[in-house]
């Protein structure tokens, strides 16, 4: 992609691409990209996500939200019915009517995403044209964008990638030098990072996605971007098409990951080592202490990751290096070798990687390996517990603030809690 990648990569990087990857195709027990709406609508507080899809889509989002909070949410589904399919009604007219009804109800909405689904893709409903048409009608009050969160196009977190990529073309132009942190982070984590960047003397820092639709960060040749999440390949490509360059780094999970991530930004912007140290030292120590509290319990424990969010490789690196755990298999739905290069360089060679899934065969491998802890989706967790394995549901890693120094201990604790629970129970 760009020459800057190799220049800023950590020195330990060597031969990382040589490790074998088990690629399987079979049943994939994963969410589709629509699921990302659950955290994205909390993040962008004046955005509304309208899925154009089937009852299945509506049911998925409300089920995946886990606790159904039946307040009026900032997401909904325009459910396609037989009349739309039979051509008895014009799907575009229908969609326009639904959007009008929605925006009349919710005048507080400033940004509307039309989110494509499996059925809308298969019937080739052109949501990009619909977005332009509706954007013109509701301009300037509401901006209308579109992306696909369909299962045939996206796996779980790739929905966020598609959403952020759809924002890139509307970011205002500026070639001024700035750091752009890309990927949805919990507000509390974002604020912590912003404080650290300020403390090291890096003042021009923006975040994507923004908390308010009106607060879009500018973008241009002076933009260097740092991925806060490992699943943003389309967004990265779109940013680079507009002149931004990527700062290669591992991801900010665990103390080490957070330090290397912040360090990569500091280096790219010529921050003096002393200023970097001063800005991060205390938090690093605090983070190490918090992680250390969990290490005694977790060190030596054997772990198995089912593919889910693409966070698996950074997490495997964290638990191996900072908690002394042994990772048997790190499954990922998709392996982006370039964005993952710095992570793979740090990951012990003993960790087996797998990409994609054939869930029955992977369950066989998992049972054979008898790990102490399995990280997997909600469909598999209880059945594995019933077989005697200890599990951690992976979706919690997306909903809980886990990035940064002050969450490193929380992240370790997420893995420790199921094991602690097993030791406490005498039933």
């Amino acid at each position, binding site marked *: 992609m760009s020459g800057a990648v190799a220049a800023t990569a950590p020195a330990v990087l060597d031969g990382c691409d040589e490790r074998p990857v088990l690629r399987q195709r*079979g*049943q*994939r*027990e*994963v*969410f*589709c*990209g*629509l*699921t990302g709406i659950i955290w994205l609508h909390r993040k962008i507080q004046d955005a509304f996500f309208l899925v*154009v899809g*089937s*009852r*299945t889509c*509506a*049911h*998925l989002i*409300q*089920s*995946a939200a*886990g606790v*159904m*909070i*039946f*307040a009026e*949410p900032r997401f*909904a*589904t*325009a*459910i*396609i*019915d*037989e009349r*739309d*399919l039979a051509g008895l*009604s014009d799907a575009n007219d229908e*969609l326009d*009517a*639904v959007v009008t*009804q*929605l925006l009349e109800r919710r005048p507080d909405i400033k940004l509307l995403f039309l989110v494509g689904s*499996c*059925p809308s*893709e*298969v*019937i080739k409903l052109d949501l990009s044209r619909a977005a332009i048409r509706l954007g013109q009608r509701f301009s300037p009050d509401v901006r209308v964008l579109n992306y696909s969160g*369909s*299962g*045939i*196009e996206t*796996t779980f977190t790739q929905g966020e990638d598609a959403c952020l990529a759809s924002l890139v073309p509307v970011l205002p132009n500026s070639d001024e030098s700035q750091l752009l942190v890309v990927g949805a982070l919990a507000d509390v984590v974002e604020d912590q990072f912003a404080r650290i960047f300020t403390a090291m003397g890096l003042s021009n820092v923006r975040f994507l996605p923004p908390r308010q639709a009106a607060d879009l960060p500018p973008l241009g040749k002076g933009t260097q971007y740092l991925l806060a999440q490992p699943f943003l390949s389309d967004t990265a490509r779109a940013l680079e098409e507009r002149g931004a360059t990527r700062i290669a780094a591992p991801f900010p999970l665990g103390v080490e990951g957070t330090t290397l991530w912040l360090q990569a930004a500091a280096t790219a912007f010529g921050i003096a080592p002393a200023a970097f140290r001063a800005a991060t030292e205390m938090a690093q120590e605090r983070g190490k202490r918090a992680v250390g509290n969990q290490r005694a319990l977790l060190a030596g424990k054997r772990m198995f990751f089912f593919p889910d969010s693409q966070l698996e490789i950074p997490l495997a690196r964290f638990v191996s290096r900072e908690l002394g755990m042994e990772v048997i298999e790190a499954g990922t739905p998709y392996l982006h070798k370039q964005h993952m290069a710095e992570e793979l360089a740090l990951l012990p060679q003993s960790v087996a990687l797998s990409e994609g899934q054939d869930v029955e065969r992977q369950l066989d491998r998992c049972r054979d390996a008898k790990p102490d802890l399995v990280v997997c*989706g*909600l*469909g*598999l*967790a*209880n*059945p594995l*517990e*019933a077989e005697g394995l200890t599990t951690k549901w992976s979706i919690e890693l997306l909903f809980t603030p886990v990035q940064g120094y002050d969450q490193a201990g929380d992240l370790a604790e997420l893995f420790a809690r199921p094991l602690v629970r097993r030791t406490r129970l005498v039933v």
Partner: protein
Amino acid sequence: MKLTLWTYEGPPHVGAMRVATGMEGLHYVLHAPQGDTYADLLFTMIERNAKRPPVTYTTFQARDLGSDTAELFKNAAKEAYERFKPQALLVGASCTAELIQDDPGGLAKALALPIPVVAVELPAYQKKENWGSAETFYQLVRAFAKKPEKRERAPGERPSCNILGPTALGFRHRDDVVEITRLLDRLGVDVHVTAPLGATPADLVTLGDADFNVVLYPETGMVAAQYLLRTFGQKLTKTVPIGIGATRDFIREVAELAGVDATAVLEAEDSRLPWYTKSVDSTYLTAKRVFIFGDATHAVAAARLARDEMGFTVVGLGTYSREFGREIREAAALYGIEATITDDYLEVEAKITELQPELVLGTQMERHIAKRLGIPCAVISAPVHVQDFPARYSPQMGFEGANVIFDTWVHPLMMGLEEHLLHMFRDDAEFHDEAGASHLGGSTIPSAPAPAPTAAEAPEAAAILVAERPVVWNEAAEKELKKIPFFVRGKARRNTERFALDHGLSDITVDTLYDAKAHFGR
């Protein structure tokens, strides 16, 4: 296209999953895109099943659409058979697979597997979850049930019935089956097969051997029961035994169908509901205005129980089960009201807001609506929530079910009363916010002077909904209104304003409030 915030039912293939997951020895191969596996978590997380649903998904992606999704389906079906060795295979498509028209039934039959294959076509753009359960169960019964050989019952042999309708992920189905099986046993009737829940395809073959069918859940079991009536002449029960009266009717109906004497069972009736509801402690339940919404079976049963056994007034009755529109309209006519038949959550919310009932009996969705409006609520029907699978035995049907319902409905009213008492006493020396709990021996701090009411104080959800109030409340009247229990305050406000409007008053005083109270008082 229809704007949907929340949905009462899933798509029809989820209904098929409820049948397959309830059964043993059946495996469902579902042609579906990546992501549709989310449905597994309904069973493993909400119902806390220890086993994964017996479902294999093809999870096709965009790249497969260009090549051969049919081949993908055939492989999935073949591998599922080899791995799980089921007695029979159920095959079908989810909404997206329906559009690509691969014909799972034809493809599966072409594999020539050594087991029966049942194909179900569930039109995802017309139908919903309960319909999907009913259709799937019907197709399975049609495929497997064999015509029984004619034979006379041996002397001393007990009559038998099937229990039809219970599924996985059903609202209290697990415990209802136990309760009704016990009741039938006391009547001297054996349960031959319970299906779908707990049945195998082999069990379905013998359905015709029972003397009659007990249809516990018409939403899922009625289509199959009617097929069995048409084909084998097997009679079926029409009463759903929820509540004391309905349970008694059910006992009489079963006795008639089975040719047994029910007198002893009716006399030995052991429910506490009849006495509890007659005891003076229950007087305050009299004429409470209730709004009822759920699947048709539970809603209709709740309305009868509410009026006849709790002494409530049914002010609203509705269902999201459009297939049972006629039944719910007939029921509503008994209470002199119009039925609300809709699957639009916003419409239900508007109706509850308009009626301002004192108790809502609904689904988890109505529970949230009621919470926002400050109205007590109890859950009577699916869609299910993890709380609808309690650890304890908690049926809705039969005499024990009536006990459970009595407690469940009274509890939120009690809580409302307690909350009101806490509000009333909150400025007392012992109760105000800064005071320690008196029973813990904490010192009593004198009450702070009453703070001026702020906008943030006591958010009255009901009041917010009345956007532009046509009349003005003076300060004293507003204060007086606050003394009314919060769960009836919305109604009091609404009645007073209507009274003022009707009488051409633009200001509401304390007197207006009490004039309205006298006017509308029951």
